[in-house]
């Protein structure tokens, strides 16, 4: 059996499962809350594994492998910090409070959190606009990643990859809403975990085991095994921060805390997310070891695809392709849900003061997610130059806007309405300006944006003081009232 035949069989089965989940989830959507956050009834396994699936998009498998190939084994630190800061610490610090506060305020979107917590409609609308604009752009880059995977591994034209992956996702999101997104994410995480473990096992066998592989890699140059290695400290540390602390402000991940069943569920969820996320080191490890097996590559992003076709059987390579596609699909679907709920709930209902029944809100969410998905696909078919530039920092802008207002909103009663709004504005503008100035001193836009945002929210809140009612804050902070 050739890789192409095996890939077609695996993908047909896989896509069939995803569409089946979409149809099955559609029957569970009775209220708008069911469609947008699964009725806050999602268990620890599904929440934790769908968190991993959304966090680690196809960029991790293909791009992480490329980093490992180019910069050496020191890049496994990126995966380790993803686990420690992006998963364990994020769940412990934010998870339970996000769940508690959003239930007490009866909000089901990230922008809704800002509107209610700071009594600031302007902060909610601004956050919605940033999410709408920059997450669509972010999704274009995700679709591009998936389509290139189809191109490399299945010799399919780029447009074919865009259409197949995009249409499948839009159908299951429109049908099943958030439940479909988390349940497909759950399956997709298992596909990613299994395919990465399989690839690692086969790569280690091909290089004669881990110890032998490390010795051979060291003989090519000490920089390929040491830390920080070829990259240097500045590059490695700033990248670790961006991809680990930045996720704390990413709405498609934070929404997982809204929808988890109750506060006790976080105990098992935190353990599962930490253990599962450990796969994050594998693309870097495989990428670094691939230098021993592959001829010199001009494009490091080809390291994992080339390695898989060398060390895996056709069926194994097909499963890896499914893993790469799974990683991209789960991220695209998660983002689609966030953008549509943000537009319908925060902009149309809360912002413009329009009334809607639960059924009408579900229908509006379906229409908006289909429209947003189609727009992202059309842009991805032939991305204009500007979009390609924007994808590079869309992530930095979203994280810089949301990170500190979210954390301060959960932990500091003194964080004020003006402080939160000006912090969002300053964070977003700094991230954009910093990237436009071509990252002075080699510092990433997210780091500049989040530092400015932190300074602004602290200073302005201390000067202006919080105008949010004391009684409302006490009700939010009270540990015992309504605890799940």
């Amino acid at each position: 059996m050739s890789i192409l035949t095996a890939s077609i069989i695996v993908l047909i089965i896989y896509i069939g499962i995803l569409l089946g989940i979409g149809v099955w989830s559609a029957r569970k959507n009775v209220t708008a809350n069911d469609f947008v956050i699964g009725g806050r009834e999602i268990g620890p396994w599904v929440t934790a594994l769908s968190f991993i699936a959304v966090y680690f998009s196809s960029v991790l498998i293909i791009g992480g492998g490329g980093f490992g190939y180019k910069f050496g084994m020191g890049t496994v630190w990126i995966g380790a910090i993803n686990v420690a800061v992006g998963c364990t610490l994020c769940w412990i610090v934010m998870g339970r409070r996000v769940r508690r506060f959003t239930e007490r305020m009866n909000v089901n979107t990230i922008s809704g959190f800002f509107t209610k917590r700071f009594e600031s409609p302007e902060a909610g609308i601004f956050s919605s606009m940033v999410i709408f604009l920059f997450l669509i752009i972010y999704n274009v880059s995700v679709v591009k990643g998936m389509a290139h995977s189809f191109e490399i591994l299945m010799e399919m034209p780029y447009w074919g990859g865009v259409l197949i992956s995009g249409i499948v996702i839009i159908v299951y999101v429109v049908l099943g809403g958030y439940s479909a997104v988390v349940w497909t994410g759950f399956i997709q995480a298992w596909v990613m975990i299994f395919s990465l473990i399989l690839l690692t096992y086969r790569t280690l066998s091909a290089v004669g085991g881990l110890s032998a592989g490390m010795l051979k890699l060291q003989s090519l140059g000490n920089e390929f095994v040491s830390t920080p290695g070829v990259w240097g400290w500045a590059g490695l540390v700033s990248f670790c921060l961006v991809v680990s602390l930045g996720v704390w402000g990413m709405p498609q991940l934070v929404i997982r805390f809204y929808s988890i069943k109750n506060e006790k569920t976080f105990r098992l969820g935190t353990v599962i997310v930490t253990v599962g996320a450990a796969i994050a080191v594998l693309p870097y490890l495989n990428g670094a070891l691939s230098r021993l097996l592959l001829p010199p590559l001009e494009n490091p992003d080809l390291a994992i695809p080339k390695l898989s076709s060398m060390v895996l059987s056709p069926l194994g390579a097909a499963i890896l392709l499914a893993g790469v596609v799974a990683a991209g699909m789960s991220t695209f679907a998660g983002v689609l849900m966030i953008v549509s709920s943000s537009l319908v709930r925060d902009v149309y209902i809360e912002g413009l003061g329009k009334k809607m029944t639960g059924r009408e809100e579900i229908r509006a969410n379906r229409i908006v997610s289909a429209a947003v998905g189609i727009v992202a696909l059309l842009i991805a078919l032939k991305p204009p130059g500007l979009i390609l530039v924007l994808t590079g920092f869309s992530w930095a802008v979203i994280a810089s806007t949301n990170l500190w207002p979210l954390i301060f909103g959960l932990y500091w009663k003194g964080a004020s309405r003006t402080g939160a709004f000006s912090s969002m504005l300053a964070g977003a503008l700094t991230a954009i300006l910093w990237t436009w100035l071509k990252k002075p001193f080699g510092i990433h836009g997210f780091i500049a944006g989040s530092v400015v945002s932190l300074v602004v929210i602290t200073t302005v809140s201390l000067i202006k003081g919080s105008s949010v009612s004391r009684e409302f804050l006490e009700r939010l902070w009270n540990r015992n009232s309504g605890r799940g």
Partner: protein
Amino acid sequence: MGPFNFPWLTFTSFIVIGLSIAAAVLWALNDIRKNGKEKGGRS
């Protein structure tokens, strides 16, 4: 050289993952204990 011929600093990344798993388990156990105490205190 550390285990599997890794330089120690590079190998420490795997220790960080192990410590993260241990921290998650200890946090969960501590939460169960705290919750039991709170319930006991209220009854």
